[in-house]
């Protein structure tokens, strides 16, 4: 298989075009990650909801009655 001069030029152009496209795609797809200047804080405070406390009130009273020595 032989490639004519004309064809070769076109391939050459296509190659450059492709390279440029790849470089641009590479730039646009680049995910920039900025490192935080402060440590990441995860708040693990237990959220005690009022409705749960109301629901547990009866069980709490029973527990106190049944274990008077430790309360």
């Amino acid at each position, binding site marked *: 298989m032989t490639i004519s001069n004309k064809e070769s030029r076109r391939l050459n152009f296509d190659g450059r075009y492709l390279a440029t496209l790849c470089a641009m795609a590479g730039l646009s797809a680049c995910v920039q990650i900025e490192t935080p200047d402060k440590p990441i804080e995860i708040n693990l405070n237990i959220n005690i909801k009022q409705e*749960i406390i109301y629901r547990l009130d009866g069980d709490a009273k029973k527990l106190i009655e049944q274990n008077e020595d430790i309360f």
Partner: protein
Amino acid sequence: MRWKNWKLGGMAMGTVAVTAAIAVAIPSAMAQRDPAYEAARAAGQIGEQPDGYLGFVSNPTPAIRDIVKDINIKRKAAYTANAPQGSTVEQFAFATGCNLIAKTKPGEKYKAPDGRWLTRDSGPPVRDSRCP
């Protein structure tokens, strides 16, 4: 014959009454507070915290420290064993703490939501707004 039946009945009732009295007396004797614990409470050396555990109001003696440590371990075990389905040990302990602070007697210490140790007086105690 009739009298005998009455006597038998009476004896049976008496036995039941004695058994019931023993059954009532034993758990209540076991459920009494340790006198040293009661004394430390009354003296305001220790107090109830909103989290359902005991805390030290002042620097404790080794004996008081041991008593409180022991009770808090037992409390944690009781909370863990009895926390109803759908609630955490911390939530159940907190709900119990609400009740324990409400039950403090005048003169006893309790921890307010802001962290201060307060002395219970005749009025209602200062409790967390989530308490029932």
